[in-house]
């Protein structure tokens, strides 16, 4: 049992208002849901829509079919009516447009007029929420509670919105009441209603990140917004840099000087950062970079999703230096994994790239509250008496990790870092011998770093005949795909990577040769993980299932591909 709701209109019509109000209310009442956004790179006009799926547990992905459509303009109806279930309904404002005569699923609500009567046409979306409540058979008290919280500082606004909500409910009664039964509520603890960028921002705050410098770039900006808001109450500084080059270099300065630092961007910004990435490798200064991917090349599709920068994140930056690349898979995992990124950066004194994408960044889900006591804050700075005097920033060690001090930590000791090749003290050198020593020291860190990588998550049949391989934000859609394929009798499993570089190989090496069919499912044109697997292990993935139109995969698309390969 599940309900799928689509709200569409032009940019600026406030689809988010509807979804946030409804979504948060549903989660408060105990329903599990996912809500995704599909929007254009413009502030007004065009066509944007959001999809909300309510299902038992917490659904992992949205789907194509729609039960209730809220069409804020005619275009929404025209673009999406083919997805509407035969028993579905379309909520629309008859003053804005009329439905074709043969369409008998209409729920005509005078959204604007009712909103004006309640106190202002901006509340048309609240009217729509009222109508949705009736169709879903819900009471209004949780939404009212949320409206009170939202408008507590705006005199009279909560009351007006409640009036608008009630008007939307009253108008809906004559159409259908509770005609979309909701799935059972979750009995366990209260869930969070949160999107991917907020998860990452909160994880950064919980990891003790004290500085974020970034240049706004969709779809990463939500992390900036989150931490900027928190800087009012917590000791974190968010600085909007003049460009991404400044952003990464500022973050390195702050990290060198002693605080956990972060920058976030998307592909184009990361392209500007790669010289700084290489600097982080050379000066062995911890840094976490959130790379929220969108389709390229160049400006590409700025508000859409892609997994096109995997190879770029592994190879970006001139010269050779150790780094780690981790990825956001689910909201549940990403919170702890971003903390891992900070921990690895500090322990190994390396840059860590954390891959996200628009699909992850903008998607809300209902998730368990996070356990902050599981987060690490281990800075690995030397302590008094814990280093050989005089202090040398790049002292040669067996592990390759040199004792790290910060400026001003010890009287009489200074810390020198240099982008040139340097000696143990940090001073410029050109001798072949010292170059070799220093390069080998840096690269030695890779061995232990590789051991830190989590093996990919294995879900499904423990002895699969068909194996789907993925990474990052496709986790949810692949899980539902596996569930559906298993239900149809296939012995199928998924192998999903969160830690990607250095590539963890044990499960790949044991499983890949055993399965009859392996498919790498990636939101890119070429199958970058499949290529990486081939390069690192010599093993070949049989098929590559790719999609790079800027939209996330839906389960039915993957199922169709897998079935096609099975038939052949």
């Amino acid at each position, binding site marked *: 049992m599940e309900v799928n709701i689509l709200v569409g209109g032009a940019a600026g019509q406030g689809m988010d208002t509807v979804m946030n109000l409804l979504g948060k209310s549903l989660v408060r009442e105990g329903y599990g849901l996912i809500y995704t956004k599909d929007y254009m790179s413009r502030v007004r006009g065009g066509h944007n829509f959001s999809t909300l799926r309510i299902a038992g547990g917490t659904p992992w992905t949205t789907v194509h079919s729609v039960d209730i459509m809220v069409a804020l303009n005619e275009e929404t109806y025209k673009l999406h009516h083919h997805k509407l279930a035969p028993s579905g309904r379309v909520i629309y404002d008859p003053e804005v447009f009329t439905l074709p005569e043969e369409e008998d699923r209409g729920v005509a609500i005078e959204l604007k007029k009712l909103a004006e009567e309640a106190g202002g046409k901006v509340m048309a979306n609240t009217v729509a929420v009222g109508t949705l409540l009736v169709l879903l058979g819900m009471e209004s008290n949780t939404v009212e509670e949320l409206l009170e919280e939202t408008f507590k500082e705006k005199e009279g606004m909560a009351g007006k919105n409640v009036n608008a909500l009630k008007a939307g409910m009253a108008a809906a009664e004559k159409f259908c009441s509770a005609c979309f039964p909701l799935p059972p509520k979750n009995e366990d603890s209260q869930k969070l209603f949160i999107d991917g960028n907020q998860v990452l921002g909160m994880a950064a705050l919980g990891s003790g990140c004290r500085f974020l410098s970034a240049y706004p770039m969709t779809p990463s900006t939500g992390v900036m917004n989150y931490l900027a808001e928190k800087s009012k109450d917590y000791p974190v500084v968010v600085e909007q840099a003049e460009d991404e080059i400044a952003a990464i270099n*500022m973050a390195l300065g702050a990290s060198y000087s002693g605080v956990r630092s972060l920058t976030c961007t998307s592909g184009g910004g990361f392209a500007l950062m790669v010289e700084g990435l290489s600097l982080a490798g050379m000066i062995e200064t911890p840094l976490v970079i959130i790379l929220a991917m969108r389709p390229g090349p160049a400006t590409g599709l700025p508000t859409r999703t892609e997994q096109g920068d995997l190879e770029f994140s592994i190879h970006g930056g001139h010269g050779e230096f150790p780094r780690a690349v981790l990825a956001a898979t689910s909201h549940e995992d990403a919170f702890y994994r971003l903390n891992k990124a900070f921990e690895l950066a500090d322990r190994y004194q390396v840059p860590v790239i954390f891959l996200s994408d628009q699909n992850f960044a903008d998607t809300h889900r209902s998730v368990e509250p996070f356990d902050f006591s599981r987060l690490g804050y281990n800075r690995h700075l030397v302590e008094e008496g814990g280093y050989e005097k005089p202090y040398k920033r790049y002292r040669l060690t067996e592990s390759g990790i040199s004792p790290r001090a910060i400026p001003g930590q010890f009287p009489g000791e200074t810390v020198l870092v240099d982008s040139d090749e340097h000696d143990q003290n940090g001073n410029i050198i050109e001798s072949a011998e010292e170059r070799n020593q220093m390069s080998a020291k840096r690269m030695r860190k890779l061995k232990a770093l590789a051991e830190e990588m989590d093996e990919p998550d294995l879900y499904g049949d423990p002895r699969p005949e068909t194996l789907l391989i993925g990474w990052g934000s496709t986790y949810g859609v692949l899980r539902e795909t596996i569930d559906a394929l298993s239900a149809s009798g296939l012995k199928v499993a998924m192998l999903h990577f969160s830690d990607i570089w250095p590539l963890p190989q044990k499960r790949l090496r044991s499983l890949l040769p055993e399965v009859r069919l392996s498919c790498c499912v990636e939101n890119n044109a070429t199958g970058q993980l499949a290529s990486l697997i081939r390069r690192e292990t010599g093993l070949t993935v049989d098929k590559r299932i790719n999609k790079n139109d800027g939209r996330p995969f839906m389960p039915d698309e993957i199922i169709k591909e897998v079935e096609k390969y099975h038939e052949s």
Partner: protein
Amino acid sequence: MKADHFLLGETAWCPGCGNFPIREALAGALAELDLPPEQVLICSGIGQAAKMPHYIKANGFNGLHGRALPPALGAKIANKSLKVIVSSGDGDSYGEGGNHFIHNVRRNPNLAHFIHDNQVYGLTKGQASPTSDPGMVTGVQVNGVINPALNPLALALVLGSGFVARCFSGEKEHLKETMKAAINFEGYALVDILQPCVSFNKYNTYKWYKDRVYFPEVSDPTDWSAAMDLARQWGDQIPLGIFYNAPRPTFEDSLEVLSGEPLAKRPFEPNDVAGVQNEFL
């Protein structure tokens, strides 16, 4: 403390390079201000001037070409108790790093920016820099520089810099005193230091500067228009001195979160912030 305390290493500069007196003036300024080396951070980019962190005993961040200012700002935010000095060349500061120059003058962080302005690219052997005078012939500008020179002092004034000065490496005592004033200044302090490049700039020689520099009377260092007039003088007469000295609120002062202990020294425990997730319930 003695200036010698701050001098270290064998330099890679040409004999007679203007960087030597700049380095001695900087060491003298640090010594006279009695700053312990571990409380000083010198940031630089790439170039001959940018090697300064290797030759002065202090913390050093010798980063990428053009990128001396961003790490300096980041370091200052993380630990505002550090005295942060940026010491780099004209190509690094005004060319490759021009965008950072513009925006950090606007930000007004508390740091002193010493630009070794020899009007030429030394490390890459003699191409024009943003401050090269028109007509200067180089291996790349084969028919002479055609663009007007960038005027860093006028630009800084227009952008709202509270401290704008010009020095000459041949006037070491004046340079040292100006550096001290810049280091003590609350906010972004620009000191453009004219220096000969004995190997690659055959135009702006030591004598060329010596014949032109003079010390005008600056009766009111808060008079922006008078400062602008001095900043725009170039040619037969080149004025030296602190043209403008009028503090405005610094970047750090404007951030409430930075009041109190430096960020880098504050303890942290993840569990203490767990309540932050309640807003999503």
